[in-house]
Structures are given as structure tokens and as C-alpha cells.
């Protein structure tokens, strides 16, 4: 009976065989054909961790670290492990109530689930950190501290030079697509942090880690076979003198303006003060966001680096170059004299002059004679060797560009402005071709009108004069630890000697500038024991068509022989140049050359200047309006928006995610939307450097010294 069913074994075998084939075919498609599962497995089973290298440090010329790294701690929580810990004690240390505690825990659970760590309180202050550290055992294992490297400014100075870091945004990521940034990274936003980002950031490492089903890290993948090590950022050695910088910042307190000091031999920047500035430490640590928004909304625009981002008419400091050019063009010589009897009458309407007399070049510089330099420039422009006024003015402009004016100098800091040197095109555009002559722009001869320069350009002009005919583009960084792989420092190895001018001509200018210090307008800027060559300037200006108090200017280099420092100082709306700018320059020179301020009288002078308050009244009132607006929160949102836009446009700082702060304003704004009329509180008084000199004022004759 059973033998009749013998053939059925083949049916069974066929069934087994088919099943095995089906399974193997399925395995083939799963494991070899489809790549979907491989990707899914990598996504959930491995974790690509970016290892951040230490960011490069920045040193000053004496090897002092002025920007370094430090560690701040975040308090982390794993909500699934907090049962049985003393919540009250923790709340007391952190200064929060239980409602806030519950809110944070819930947020943590929503964000990261309860068995994964979340930040409970970021960037603990030193005080909280100390208390927590002592008591941490009471909160373990649900809470622990996690290191977070942040930047630290040991001297808390030079914020505008050093810059700060901020989280990268989508625009940045798009721009730097293949440079290894991911969202959440920090990158330099301004200052050296930005311009040397490539060098400072170092090279990121990548660690491949294994994850388990609850997203916990369980160890390294393949014992780190595929990992790449992080390489720390390169250190920068700068030419800054951090003590000089701090001293400069103190001197400029409660003043609006700038100081730039350059080593003329190297082009290295010794100090670069923009005032009002901010303490860079405000932008590290637990209160960063709050401070950042405050600074951004401040009508004094502390983020603006005025030394390169604002420009002013150079005023009388410009006369030195005008004289030099006159000598070089042979329209005058050192002995040529012009007489001044109260005004320059060359153009019908007189241009006032305060120093009547007959002046040769040296005396004209020393006494800052307007008439003299009007004559000089008139001769340059009307020089018969040029066929018409267009070509002569353009030739003049080319000289000025060669002296580093009206062009970007190429300093290693971001957002440098070029300033302005007028050319024929400038006036053709305003008045039409052939419808202007020297008299149209005579005020340019004394550094007013269409000529504008940044404080850095003025300092560089001093370096050029000091070197008798060459300059190296001013820069902050001297050398890069481990080599300049990106050629960032190449531009600072070139000596710019565009025009070949005889040394003797420079001596003539130096004589005049030395005279300024000894018998002229800069007597108050004398530095005991040092021969300084300087030039004062008093710059007329107006804001929104309203004439403002003059800007005080002073530029100098010292010592006259073998000069080691070239300096430019501007105090906005401080009046006569000799009263504030000159003594500040003199103190800076003394501090740098002698390493300290000597003598009781000089020290008192320094203290007196530090205390001097030269805040322009319009800015004081702007501050007052700002403060009161900040209290009226409903309109603050609009103000904030306006200010942030203005501040960004002015400082050139790229976007930062300030939407949080704005949202806060927005919330309260909504509530009070219909209660108040907002038109009266619109930003009427943001103070912008661009608005300082409207073009329409330029042809007015003006006094200048």
C-alpha cells in the first residue's frame, strides 16, 4: 500500500526545493539588490560624530594670549534617571521654581525622549557651577555636567578686532558647502575670527560611533578604524600691543571716535580702538544671546569698527599730502610763499583763514594755513602740463590712491570701506561736464568736501610719510603658527612705493609736522623726550543737514628719525582737534614708545581724558529715547527690527539668528497692538556714519585748521 505512494517523496522534495529557492531569491534581493536597508541600518545604527578641534589662539606682539579657549559647563539631564533625586535642592541652586523645573523636563522629553541626555541649563555661570560641582553626587546619575569649549578674552579688550563666533545659518552653509560645516557649528562672524576662520578652525575629525535601539552611544564603530583625528586650529601672532589697546579703549571711553596706531616699518597694527565699543566677554558665556541683542540694538552701534567701517573728511591732516604732491609736481618748492590776509580770495567768495601772514610750506603746515594749500592745489589742478581739468584732477586722484586714500588698503579685517577721493567723474556727475572748475571743489584742498577717509587710511598716510615714500598694507596678524597655508599674509610682504618722491621733499613735510608739535596747533600733544611729527585737524560736519560740533582729528608719527609708531585719532564732535584728539595721540605714543606713562602730570592728564565725556548730545538723546522705547515693549519690536537692519547694514555683519529676541518683542507687541499709536516711536535717530556728510554741504567755504 505504501509503495504506491512512493513517488510522493518527489512532490515533497520539490516543495522543499522550491521553498529554499524562494528564500534564497528573497535574501538575494534584500541583501544584494536593494541598498535601502543598508542606508536605514547606517541611519539608525551608527552615528557620525564630528570632533571639534581646539580653535586657534591669538597672541599679541609680546606673546600674551589675547583670545584663547576655555571650558564652560552645561548641566545635562537624562529624564528617565532622575527619579529619587533631590529636585528642590537642584532648583535652589539653579534659582528656579518647580514649575520651571517641570517645564524644562517636559521640553527635554519632547526634544530628546526621556532616556537620552538633554541640556537642562546651558552655559552655567561660575557661581552656579561651583555650587553644583560640590553637590553633583546628590543628583547623579540623572544629571551631569558636560564640557563646552568657548572663547575667552583674557584682557577683555579689542572686541572689534578679535570678533566673535556665532552659529552658522543656512546662507553660510550654502556659501561654504564643501568645507565641512554642518548646522549647529560655530564660525567667525566678525574681526579676526572671520578673516582667519580657515586657519583658526583647524581640521575637524570624524568619529563613527555605534548606537543602540534607544539611540544611546554604545562605543566606537570597528574600534575607530574609519575615524579621522581632529587637527587643532593654528595660532595667530599679531602685531597688537594689548596693553596699548586697553589703554586706548580707556582713553576713548565716553567718546565717539577711533584710534589707529601702526608700526610704519612693518604695517603691523599696534592698536585699533573704535569707540563706543563693547567688552568682548559679553559675547561668551551664559548671557551671550541677551547681550548680543542689547549690543545690536544700541544706537551707538558698538559693533561698528569705526577705524575701517566709518569714514570722515580727513581735514587738515590731508594738507601734508597736498604739500608733498605740490612739491613733487614742482608747482611749489619748500621756499614758495603765499600770503594769507584773512581768507583765500582765489575764487571770488572768500574761504576763511585764521592765520594771517606770509607762509612758506613749513609754516603753512605748522599753522595749518588754509589759503596756502588752496593755492597749492589750485596750481596742481591748473598745471599746464595736463590738457584739461579732468586729466589734472584724475592725476591728482591717482596720486592720492597711491598714497592709500580712496582705495581699500586690504587690512586683514572684514568690512573695510574704501573712503572717497573725488575724480573728474565725480563732478561731471554732479555738475555736468565742463561746468565745474577748481573753485567748485576748493574745500578738497584742505581735506573737506568730497574727500573722505577711514581712520586706518589716515594712520597709514602717516606711516607713508614716516617711511618717506612707502607703506606696507596695515594688518593685524604678523605670522601664523605652523605656516601660512592659504597665503593669507602674502599681501603684507609687499612694499607699496607707487610714486618715487625724493626724500628731501619728505624732510620738508616732516619739518612742518615737527613744527606743529613745537610751535603750532599740536603743542598740547608734545611727548616729553620724543620728537613727534604730527598734524591736527578740525573737521566740519553736519548731521541730517544740521551743523554739528566739529570732529577733532590728530595724526602723527614718532620718533621723527627711525619712526616706530604712526597714529591717527578722531573724536567725533569734540571740537578743536588739539583739545582731545591730540593729547590722546600723545599719550598713546608715550605709552607705546616708553611702555608706560611717566610723570605725575602726564598720569593726571590720562585720567582726566579718560573721564572726559564727549558724547555728542544727539547721541545722548538717542540713547535716552532708545531706553524709554525699550521700556515701551510694544513699539520695541518695530524699533528692534529697524535697528537691527540698520546696524547690520552699517557694520556689514552677516545675519545672525536674532529671531528669538524679536519673537519676544513680537509677543508683547501683539497684546498691545491697538492701544498705542506707534508712529511717534519709530526709529528717528539711529546714528549712522554714512549720514555724517551729506553731499550738498560740500561747496560751502569753511574754516579749517
Amino acid at each position: 500500500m505504501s509503495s504506491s505512494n512512493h513517488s510522493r517523496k518527489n512532490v515533497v522534495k520539490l516543495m522543499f526545493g522550491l521553498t529554499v529557492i524562494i528564500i534564497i531569491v528573497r535574501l538575494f534581493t534584500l541583501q544584494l539588490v536593494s541598498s535601502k536597508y543598508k542606508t536605514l541600518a547606517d541611519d539608525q545604527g551608527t552615528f557620525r560624530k564630528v570632533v571639534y578641534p581646539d580653535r586657534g589662539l591669538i597672541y599679541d606682539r609680546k606673546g600674551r594670549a589675547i583670545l584663547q579657549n576655555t571650558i564652560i559647563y552645561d548641566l545635562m539631564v537624562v529624564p528617565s534617571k532622575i527619579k529619587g533625586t533631590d529636585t528642590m535642592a537642584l532648583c535652589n541652586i539653579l534659582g528656579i521654581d518647580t514649575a520651571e523645573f517641570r517645564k524644562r523636563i517636559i521640553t527635554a522629553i519632547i526634544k530628546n525622549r526621556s532616556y537620552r541626555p538633554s541640556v537642562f541649563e546651558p552655559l552655567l555661570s561660575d557661581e552656579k557651577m561651583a555650587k553644583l560641582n560640590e553637590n553633583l553626587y546628590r543628583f547623579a546619575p540623572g544629571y551631569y555636567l558636560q564640557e563646552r569649549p568657548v572663547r575667552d578674552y583674557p584682557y577683555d579688550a579689542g572686541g572689534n578686532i578679535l570678533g566673535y563666533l556665532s552659529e552658522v545659518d543656512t546662507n553660510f552653509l550654502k556659501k561654504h558647502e564643501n568645507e565641512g560645516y554642518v548646522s549647529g557649528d560655530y564660525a567667525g562672524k566678525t574681526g579676526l575670527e572671520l578673516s582667519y576662520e580657515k586657519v583658526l578652525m583647524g581640521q575637524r575629525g570624524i568619529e563613527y560611533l555605534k548606537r543602540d535601539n534607544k539611540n544611546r552611544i554604545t562605543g566606537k564603530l570597528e574600534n575607530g578604524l574609519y575615524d579621522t583625528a581632529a587637527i587643532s586650529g593654528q595660532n595667530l601672532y599679531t602685531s597688537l600691543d594689548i596693553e596699548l589697546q586697553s589703554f586706548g579703549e580707556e582713553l576713548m571711553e565716553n567718546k565717539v571716535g577711533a584710534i589707529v596706531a601702526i608700526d610704519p616699518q612693518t604695517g603691523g597694527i599696534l592698536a585699533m580702538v573704535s569707540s563706543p565699543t563693547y567688552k568682548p566677554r559679553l559675547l561668551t558665556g551664559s548671557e551671550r544671546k541677551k547681550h548680543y541683542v542689547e549690543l545690536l540694538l544700541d544706537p551707538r552701534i558698538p559693533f561698528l569698527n569705526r577705524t575701517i567701517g566709518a569714514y570722515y573728511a580727513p581735514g587738515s591732516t590731508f594738507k601734508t599730502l597736498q604739500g608733498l604732491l605740490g612739491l613733487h609736481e614742482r608747482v611749489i618748492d619748500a621756499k614758495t610763499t603765499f600770503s594769507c590776509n584773512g581768507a583765500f580770495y582765489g575764487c571770488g567768495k572768500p574761504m576763511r583763514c585764521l592765520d594771517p601772514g606770509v607762509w612758506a610750506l613749513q609754516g603753512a603746515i605748522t599753522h595749518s594755513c588754509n589759503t596756502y594749500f588752496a593755492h597749492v592745489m589750485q596750481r596742481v589742478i591748473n598745471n599746464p602740463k595736463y590738457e584739461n581739468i579732468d586729466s589734472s584732477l584724475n592725476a591728482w586722484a591717482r596720486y592720492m590712491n597711491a598714497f592709500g586714500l580712496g582705495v581699500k588698503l586690504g587690512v586683514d579685517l572684514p568690512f573695510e570701506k574704501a573712503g572717497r577721493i573725488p575724480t573728474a567723474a565725480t563732478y561731471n556727475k554732479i555738475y555736468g561736464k565742463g561746468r565745474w572748475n577748481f573753485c567748485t571743489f576748493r574745500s578738497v584742498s584742505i581735506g573737506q568736501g568730497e574727500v573722505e577717509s577711514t581712520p586706518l587710511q589716515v594712520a597709514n598716510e602717516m606711516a607713508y610719510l614716516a617711511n618717506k615714500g612707502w607703506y606696507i598694507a596695515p594688518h593685524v596678524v604678523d605670522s601664523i603658527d605652523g605656516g601660512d597655508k592659504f597665503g593669507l599674509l602674502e599681501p603684507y610682504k609687499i612694499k607699496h612705493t607707487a610714486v618715487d618722491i625724493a626724500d628731501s621733499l619728505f624732510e620738508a613735510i616732516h619739518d612742518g609736522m615737527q613744527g606743529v608739535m613745537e610751535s603750532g596747533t599740536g603743542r598740547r600733544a608734545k611727548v616729553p623726550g620724543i620728537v613727534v611729527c604730527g598734524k591736527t585737524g578740525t573737521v566740519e560736519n553736519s548731521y541730517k543737514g544740521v551743523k554739528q560740533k566739529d570732529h577733532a582729528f590728530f595724526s602723527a608719527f614718532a620718533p621723527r628719525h627711525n619712526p616706530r609708531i604712526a597714529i591717527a585719532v578722531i573724536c567725533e564732535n569734540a571740537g578743536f582737534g588739539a583739545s582731545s584728539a591730540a593729547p590722546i595721540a600723545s599719550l598713546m605714543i608715550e605709552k607705546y614708545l616708553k611702555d608706560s606713562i611717566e610723570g605725575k602730570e602726564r598720569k593726571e592728564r590720562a585720567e582726566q581724558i579718560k573721564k572726559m565725556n564727549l558724547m555728542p548730545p544727539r547721541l545722548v538723546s538717542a540713547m535716552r529715547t532708545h531706553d524709554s522705547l525699550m521700556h515701551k515693549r510694544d513699539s520695541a519690536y518695530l524699533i528692534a527690527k529697524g535697528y537691527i537692519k540698520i546696524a547690520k547694514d552699517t557694520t556689514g555683519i552677516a545675519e545672525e539668528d536674532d529671531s528669538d529676541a524679536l519673537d519676544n518683542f513680537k509677543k508683547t507687541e501683539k497684546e498691545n497692538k491697538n492701544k498705542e499709536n506707534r508712529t511717534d516711536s519709530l526709529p528717528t535717530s539711529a546714528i549712522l556714519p554714512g549720514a555724517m556728510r551729506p553731499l550738498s554741504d560740500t561747496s560751502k567755504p569753511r574754516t579749517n585748521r
Partner: protein
Amino acid sequence: MSNQPVIAKGVDWLTVWLYALLVIIGLISIFSAEYKTGDDFFQQLLGFEKNYSKQVMYFGICLVIAVFILLSDSKVFPATANLLYVVGVVLMIATFLIGKEVKGSKSWIPLGFMNLQPVETAKIFTSLALAKYLSLPDLDLKQPRSQAIAAGIAFLPIVFSVLQNETGLALVYFAFLLPMYREGLPSVYLISGASLAGLLIVTLLLPTNTLMLVLTVLAALIILFMRKSFKRNSKSLLMIVLFWGASMLFVGMVVPFMFKSVFQKHQADRIFSLVGKDNPFISADTAVMDTKKPVRKKPVENYNVKQSKIAIGSGGLTGKGFLKGTQTQGDFVPEQHTDFIFTAVGENFGFVGSTLVVLLYAALLFRIIFLAERQRSTFSRAYAYCVAGILFFHVLVNIGMTIGLAPVIGITLPLMSYGGSSLLTFTILIFILLKLDSDRQMVIR
């Protein structure tokens, strides 16, 4: 013959090697699913705290029992088959009284060193009893009475399994259709079983009304085309009408009834998730509860199956290497050491490794058929087919569910999955077969 018991005599060593190889691969896989870098291997092995170390212990016990079986007299198995079957049934009943609940199923009897699952071990007794019945002289499986008795013996444990919430294990007993088929059960059962399964799948895939319409149209078309032959043979018309009626009944009544009342909700869901659909047969009370939950539009693939497929699918050609599988090491696959042990092989050793394992099972199955067919006694052959059937069903469904071809019904991968009961059952099943085979010359029945 000789009084000297020689274990090795006449034993089919190929089967033994295949058995040992699969158990060892299983041990390695359990180890890889459990071991974490830095664990103290020796301490854990000796401490019997970890699953793999326990499995080593079970393997030891199994080897002792295997030797014991090989030393026994092969006559004892047919002689005690019916008695053992009764013992098995008693054990299954006893489970209701002294059973211990493990993972929602009260089907375990604690023995101290391990938990015994009578429904699992009952496979042995059922195999023996069924073989015994099938080897009765003059048995004709074409007769409904014999069919009913054979089915009764084979399917009685299903009742206990279902009552103990072990539906997956219950399904295994359908594997006994294989020896019954081999011993003369008419093919129509297998064919109608297969068409029923086919109809079931279509029922799951298509809406009931559409399917009923299609079936009716199909029947009408057949009648239309065959109307001439009906004049000669009116019986075939009746057959077609009967088939149509049965299908309609199945589609319209039986399947909904099974999914509403027989299967657990999660089981029904799993079966539907396999064909990529939501379970439409949710009974009224659960439906009310479900309305409170957000409605999911897309059927969610079973988490276990998804993780299992990810683990296997990421293995590639040669796998990630021993202890290097990220999914295995990260505990992503639930129940990996038991029902989903195949995923560890798939991830760590890739297509090569998993195919090798499948081929090892195939070799074992074919070897068992080979052994079966060389038996002189019907008892031994029928028993061998029982073993082959059970093994085949387990391997097919277990591997099938790890690669998304079969519903997740929670049955082990024979010899490889962690678990004393399962390993012990298959060891005993295989070694009784080996004992019977080694004595095939002397036992003539």
C-alpha cells in the same frame, strides 16, 4: 544481537554533523546578539547568566539526552508511542493548573533549571503517536474514518495551544499533513488546502464584495463555456456550483469569522500587515476604542519585521563581520536571540552566511527524506516525515517572517533559536529518528 551498546553503530553521521553545525551557528549568533564589547566572556559563560551561556548548558543537556536515546532500544518508541501521547496531553492539561506565564502565554511549566513548554514537546509525542497510527497494517487513508482518526491525533494539541495563546505553535501541527500525505492521504486535501490558502490571501487583498462578484462571474463563465458537457455529465455542473457556494461562504463568512473571533487582534494585524493592509475586521468594541487614536492612513509595517529586514538587508554580500553588526549590537531587532536569530546571521555574515544556513537546513531536510525512504518500517518512515514536516514548517515560517514573507507568528528557528524547550524538542525528534535509522535493518514491522 550484541549486548554491547555501541552508540556510533549505524548512526547517520551526516545528520549528526548537520545538527551540531546548526546548533553551533545558533550559539554564535545568540552570542553576537548579546555580547557587548568589554563584557567578561569567561565569567558570563561560566556564570550561566547570559542567554548564550544558558544555551550552552541546554546544548550539554541535549547531548546527554541524545546519547541516552542512542543507547536506548529502538523498539521502545513504537511500543510507548500511544502512552507518551497520553502523557503529553496530560502535561498540556497540567499547564493550565501549574503553568507559569511568560510573555502573555500561560504555556510553561517551571522545572527549576529551565521552563518546559508542553505544547512544544508535544510535537515529539504527536509524531510518535501519528507514526504509530499510520503504520497500522491495512490502514487506508482514503477512508474518511482513518483520515478523521489521523487528523484527531495530529490536531488535538492545536486546541491546547490556542487555549494557551500560542496560536503560532498551533499552526505547526498542520505540518503533520506531510506524513499523512506521504502515507496515502488523497491529494485533493493538499490541493484544496492550497486553493483555500490561495483564496484566503485573495480574500485579504480584495474587498469582499468585489471578490464575490469576481467569483460569481468566473463561475458563470465556466458554466457558459462548459454548457455542452453538462448535457453528458450533470455532476460537474453540481460540482462547480458547490465550489462556488463554498468559496462564497469562505469569503463572506469564514474569513471574517476567523479574523474577528479566532485570531487575536495582534495576530490578525500581523497577517494583514504582511499583505500591506489595515485589518478591516476589527470587532465593534475595539473599533470604538480605536476612534480615539489618531487615524493612521498608511498601514504601518510591523516594527519587528522592519527591523529584521533592515538587519538582514544591511548585511550585503559577506556581512559586517562577527560582532560588528550595528543593528545586532545595538539591540534594534526585538526578540533577536529567539525568534529573530536569523537576523544576526544575515547581518553579521551577509548573503553568503544566510544562504549557507538555508542550505544547511535544506541539506538536513533532504537527508531526513533520504533516511525516511530507506526505512523498512512504515513507523520509522512516517515518523521521519513527521520530523521533516515540523522542521520544514518551522524553517519556512521563521525565516519567512524575518525576511517579510510570512506573518510573525512567533515560532523558533529549529536548533538555532535560544530556548531550552525548542532545542530539546528538535534534539529528541532528530535523535529518535537517528536511533530508528540505525536499527532499520533489525526492526521489521
